[in-house]
């Protein structure tokens, strides 16, 4: 048997958490070191996993591990990654490491619990990206919930309690119905295996054609994931949670947790229910409408925000709308996949969606760090309170500019490619949606330039108020640089990431054909 690298990666955070558990709470330095150390190990392991997958062929599920878990019930401990999940694992490792590194100097309250919960959260996220069994998927999905809930609730801002419970209830409400749908799928197919069911669903619908059960199960899965994405109208938990969470919590929330929802849509909902997905993307275009509303509405709300953190939170709603849109485009193409051109367009929609997941993780993660950095100094996030900071904190200004430009999709930075591919797919299948959706890009440029750049950095500097403002410390720079480099690198050379995604999605679409 080969070395079970996925299991090792998956449970490394748990091991770290257990280690932290036995370190006395007074010894905060050791706790921090162990926490960051383990996060870094998972980053390395995640990188190795990605390399291994790329070498072995990113189209297929690689490094599969399978053991029986609950026999009478066909539940398996089943892990595996392909070109789609491997980059997500890398992203999780990267952002967790940076978050813990950044937290080492910003979190002083109850350090032990903080690091412990963060590593448990990482365990949950890894599990979702690796699980190939629906029960496992669900278990890890929920494992991530409690640590995040406590991170918001204990270390959050003034309204943390409300935000924490709202986050928890929204996600839970969605996921319990997903659980019922999982059971329903199991009793119709006799399997919990995600690839197996996808295989079956490709030839025959899981549920009898025309029965309400298929539609109900589709929506159960879709809504559970759409809440997490979050797609309009299920997005209302997000601004609260993001705004109240501690900086690193927001980074992980925006950077990885939202991706869990999008990941579920692509990994489960689309292959399990291609017909329903197609139907609700074309004949009854609920899904494209949700995506468009997320993009346009999210962007418009951003324009009206005066709280920097809230603005970025809403920008997540808009940006994740592109993911849903790309997905809807691919689903809309389901019936015409025969042609080469249509196939390419559908693949491009999916590639764009996945690329956006990755890029948004890097970019918005960076933006939340930047919010945290200025809030630590100024103790306000009110845009109107700032002005003219460009000369006071030039380094910060530069970093913010690059990240902001990446966010609005400037060519040469990571955000550009995701929008490019999403719209390439969308134009082919859903013209109207593409046209309306492009408006979102314009709005994004507007709020980044007008609200963030102009209100914070340009104009007259209030010497008295901000004269003592310090520029970024070395450790803040060290947190941002890996993200900046990734943005620029992907902007100029998106090929490795794209190839990885493309291989996985070509396989998925061929299966659907």
């Amino acid at each position: 048997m080969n070395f079970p690298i996925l299991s090792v990666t998956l449970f490394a955070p748990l091991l770290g958490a257990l280690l932290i558990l036995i370190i006395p709470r007074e010894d905060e330095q050791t706790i921090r070191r162990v926490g960051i150390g383990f996060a870094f190990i998972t980053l390395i392991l995640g990188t190795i996993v990605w390399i291994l997958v790329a070498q072995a062929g990113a189209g297929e599920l690689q490094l599969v591990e399978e053991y029986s878990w609950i026999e009478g019930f066909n539940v398996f401990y089943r892990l595996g990654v392909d070109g789609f999940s491997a980059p997500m694992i890398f992203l999780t490792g990267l952002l967790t490491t940076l978050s813990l590194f950044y937290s080492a100097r910003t979190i002083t309250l109850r350090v032990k619990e903080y690091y412990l919960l963060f590593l448990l959260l990482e365990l949950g996220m890894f599990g979702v990206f690796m699980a190939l069994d629906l029960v496992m998927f669900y278990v890890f999905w929920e494992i991530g919930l409690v640590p995040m809930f406590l991170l918001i609730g204990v270390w959050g801002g003034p309204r943390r309690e409300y935000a924490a419970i709202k986050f928890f209830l929204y996600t839970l409400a969605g996921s319990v119905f997903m659980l019922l749908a999982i059971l329903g799928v199991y009793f119709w197919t006799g399997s919990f295996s995600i690839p197996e069911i996808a295989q079956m669903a490709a030839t025959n619908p899981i549920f009898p054609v025309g029965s309400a059960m298929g539609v109900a199960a589709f929506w159960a899965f879709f809504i559970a994931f759409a809440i997490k994405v979050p797609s309009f109208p299920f997005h209302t938990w997000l601004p609260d949670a993001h705004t109240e969470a501690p900086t690193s919590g927001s980074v992980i929330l925006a950077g990885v947790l939202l991706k869990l929802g999008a990941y579920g849509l692509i990994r489960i909902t689309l292959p399990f229910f291609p017909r329903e997905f197609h139907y609700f993307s074309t004949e009854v275009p609920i899904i494209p409408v949700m995506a468009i509303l997320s993009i346009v509405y999210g962007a418009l709300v951003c324009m009206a925000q005066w709280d920097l953190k809230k603005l970025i939170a809403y920008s997540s709603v808009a940006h994740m709308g592109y993911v849903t849109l790309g997905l809807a485009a691919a689903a809309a193409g389901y019936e015409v996949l025969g042609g080469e051109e249509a196939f390419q367009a559908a693949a491009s929609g999916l590639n764009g969606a996945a690329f956006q997941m990755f890029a948004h993780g890097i970019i918005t993660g960076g933006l939340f760090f930047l919010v945290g950095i200025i809030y630590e100094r100024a103790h306000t996030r009110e845009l109107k309170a700032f002005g003219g900071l460009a000369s006071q904190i030039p380094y910060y200004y530069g970093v913010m500019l690059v990240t902001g430009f990446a966010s609005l999709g400037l060519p040469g930075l990571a955000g550009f490619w995701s929008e490019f591919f999403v719209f390439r797919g969308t134009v082919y299948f859903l013209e109207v949606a593409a046209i309306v959706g492009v408006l979102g890009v314009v709005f994004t440029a507007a709020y980044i330039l007008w609200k963030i750049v102009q209100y914070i950095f340009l104009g007259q500097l209030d010497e008295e108020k901000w004269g003592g403002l310090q520029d970024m410390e070395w450790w803040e720079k060290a947190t941002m640089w890996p993200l900046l480099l990734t943005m620029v690198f992907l902007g100029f050379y998106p090929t490795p990431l794209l190839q990885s995604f493309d291989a996985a999605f070509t396989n998925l679409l061929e299966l659907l054909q």
Partner: protein
Amino acid sequence: LWLLSPELVLLVTGLFLLLFDMMVRPQEEKSWLPYVAVVGLIAALIATITLWGCEETRVLTVLSCDGFALAVKMIAYVAMILVVLVSDAYIQRQGSYQGVFYMLLLICTMAISLMAGAVDLVLIYLAFETISITSYLLTGYLRYDRRSAEGGIKYLLYGAGVSAVMLYGMSWLYGITGTTDLVGISQGLMVVEESMRVLLFVVMVLLSAGFAFKIGAVPFHQWAPDAYEGAPTPATAFISVAPKIGGFALILRVMLTMVPRTEFWNMAGDLWVSIAVLTMTIGNLVALWQSNVKRLLAYSSIAQAGYILIGVVAISPRGVAAVLLYLLAYALTNLGAFAAVVAFSNQTGSDEIEDYAGLHKRAPGMALVMLVCLLSLAGIPPTAGFFGKLYLFSAAIEQPSPILSLLAIVGVINSVISLAYYWKVIRAMYFLSSDEEERLPVSLSLNVALGVALAGVLLLTVFLSPLFNLLEVAARTFFG
């Protein structure tokens, strides 16, 4: 007689405790009594394990020794070991008659054992009454405390009434079929005349009243909150678990031996489906308004009984196994939660949720166990409670009947509601701050109980497969 060894061990240990309680005068020298009780329970547990896998046999014609009975016994013994550990520190502070408390626990455990295997209405009734009477006594154990006495009396009056009703139903059954043996009754029912159908329905309702009382199901649940609140907290832990195990053993045994083979299952089935829905919903909704942690857990355990009923009405091997698994998960979880409640009230003398504020600073370990147990009660993975519910709901969805699928959906909705009140406790422990900063010490036996419960709730996940296989073997007792 060997087959009776677990019960005999319990009886002997119980009597031993009673004797020593009377003979040894100085109270200080009695602190080892609970350990005797634990040893007795462990011995009974080992005896049961050695019996596992034996042929299905009748003992003295009224008692069956089969996989189901043995599984129930094991669950009951594990639960009672925890109860004893939870009780130790509390009972020691009460002074006199410590031995009696443990004696009652052991006698009740023995009655549950008998209930698990009873196949004759007479023995069933005897076991039922023994469980009830010991429970009343434990509830009213604090003789000088008004609430304890009130809870005990209420429980007693309610129970006496309901058991009379059940006995009445049993006598009808005897009248119809001419036997008290469950197998005999089920054969007798198969040939029953058309005109007797209505009568059978009445019998079913009468019997169900007794069953519902024992597990604390709606509409026979009103005794629970007062008894829970008034009883000494370890006794509350006990009555939240032990009678339920006995009650569910009884329901499964009676229902599955005689009911499915006659078409009168249809009536009983519908009756119990509605009881399940009402129990879950009312338990959860009323729990939302509670401010006392014991009352909150009382309503929560009413709701839990509703979930378990889902597995009962599924009438399938998997349903039975799911009920057993959930009983085990529930026992571990609820006792873990009560261990924390007892530890808290030992130190502060309070059961109000608002006093739990800031507990995570004062006793991090205790707060953690409480958190995990509450999440398990709400059914959040990866706890035992989640997998228990997974099995229960899947047993229902598996059946072709759409009513059962709906029942599972009701169960899911209820789980979400339940989170709202478990949240109140979590909120107090983790989010509210209090003026009290001093740390709370926890006694050794309580620490053991907390640790065992925590380990059980989390590790059940890992051993799910072998465990469930065992329970399915047990469930096959009823399904050939």
